[in-house]
């Protein structure tokens, strides 16, 4: 099944072959989980949100539009879900929480990880999200532009500014 595009598979789901949703899940569950976790710092919430995303895609499968890339669609849905979740619950992983998540898991390079996540957490939500999408999740500028309903040039510009800000914080030159 690997050679079939995401869009093809989602069309199948749309036309009633619900079993195909499991393939979508297999392809995307890990990266969506990481998207939520990197954004919120809370593993349990991230797991719940991830499952909700796929169930939501299933529920609204009729609205899938082949002209839009599947990737942009799923990340768009995820993003909305994250924002809704933030509104109803105080989510912000305080920087003081990050160290507990990190050093307990004995990551070899804990020092740099800590510094990175700490710096990320000091960014505005916009900037943080853009960096997660483009640098951590590896989405292309075009895909991100689609999610934000803006141009590739505009999003590239914003991403640069976000990274520049992160750089300043990270290297403590501010």
């Amino acid at each position, binding site marked *: 099944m690997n050679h079939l595009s995401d869009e093809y598979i989602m069309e199948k789901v749309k036309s009633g072959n*619900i*079993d195909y*949703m*499991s393939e979508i*899940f297999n392809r995307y*569950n*890990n*990266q969506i*989980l*990481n998207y939520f*976790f990197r954004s919120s710092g809370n*593993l349990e919430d991230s*797991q719940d949100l*991830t*499952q909700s995303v*796929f*169930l939501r895609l*299933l*529920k609204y499968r009729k609205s899938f539009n082949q002209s839009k890339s599947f990737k942009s669609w799923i990340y768009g849905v995820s993003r909305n879900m994250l924002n809704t979740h933030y509104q109803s619950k105080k989510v912000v992983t305080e*920087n*003081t929480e990050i*160290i*507990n998540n990190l*050093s307990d898991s*004995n*990551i*070899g*390079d*804990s*020092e*740099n*990880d*800590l*510094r*990175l996540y*700490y710096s990320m957490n000091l960014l505005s939500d916009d900037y943080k999200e853009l960096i997660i999408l483009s*640098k*951590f999740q590896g989405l292309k500028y075009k895909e991100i532009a689609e999610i934000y309903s803006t141009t590739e040039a505009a999003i*590239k510009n914003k*991403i*640069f500014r976000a*990274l*520049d800000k*992160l*750089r300043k914080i*990270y*290297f*403590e030159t501010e």
Partner: protein
Amino acid sequence: MKCSDINNHLLDYLDNNLNSQERIDFESHIKNCDNCSTKLMQFKELHNEISKAAPIESSEFFKTGFFIKLNKEKNRSTRKPIMDFSFKSLLKVAASILLFIGGTVFGLIIQNKVGVNSKLTLLEQEVFKLKQQVHLTALEEKTPSEKILAIEYLNSSETNQELLNTFNFLLNNDESINVRLEAAQALYKLSDNQKARDILLKSLNVNQKPIVQIKLINYLTEIEERRIIEPLKDLIQNDNTNRMVKDYAQNSLQTLI
């Protein structure tokens, strides 16, 4: 190219998206401009750190959980009787997943027992021998993970001065951050003992690794060691203190005062 142009082209440069002329212009500016050259280097380093950040893995249980929900959803929308073909096949999938997990876990247990067994026996013997007297020299030759295992064993034996000295030494001097953190934790667990608390407190000023300093602040705040208040104030006022450490220090100070 000017400095402002560098900003506009930086991402493209890193993504290898500049044409050859733009690339030449870019690089020649970098060569002659310290600011931009530093900026580029920092961007590269940041990029590097991000690519090293390890993603988390979703667990098998999590995945199985979803498949079950998926099937419920499917049944609801197609209105088929519960015991239909696809549910049976889902059961098969679930069963094989569980078998796989069971097999993997079992295999890992066996592997662990066999692999670490010889090291454990050696350590156990050594710990038994050293139970009354802990010698630092015995630990000097070991790898970080062996030291961590040793610390966990020693932790359960009686507290004595030599034991504390060992932890003290590891906390402040070991090359491995993980060993230092393990030693800090061991001392934290022994924090009913006044001397253990003293060691943690002293280490705060001595320990140069930010992540260890932060853990120390955490522990000392948790056990409500009020003698930390002045050192915290010093850390906050000292310009050389790592920014993250300062944040933690400020946070703790608010809790304690």
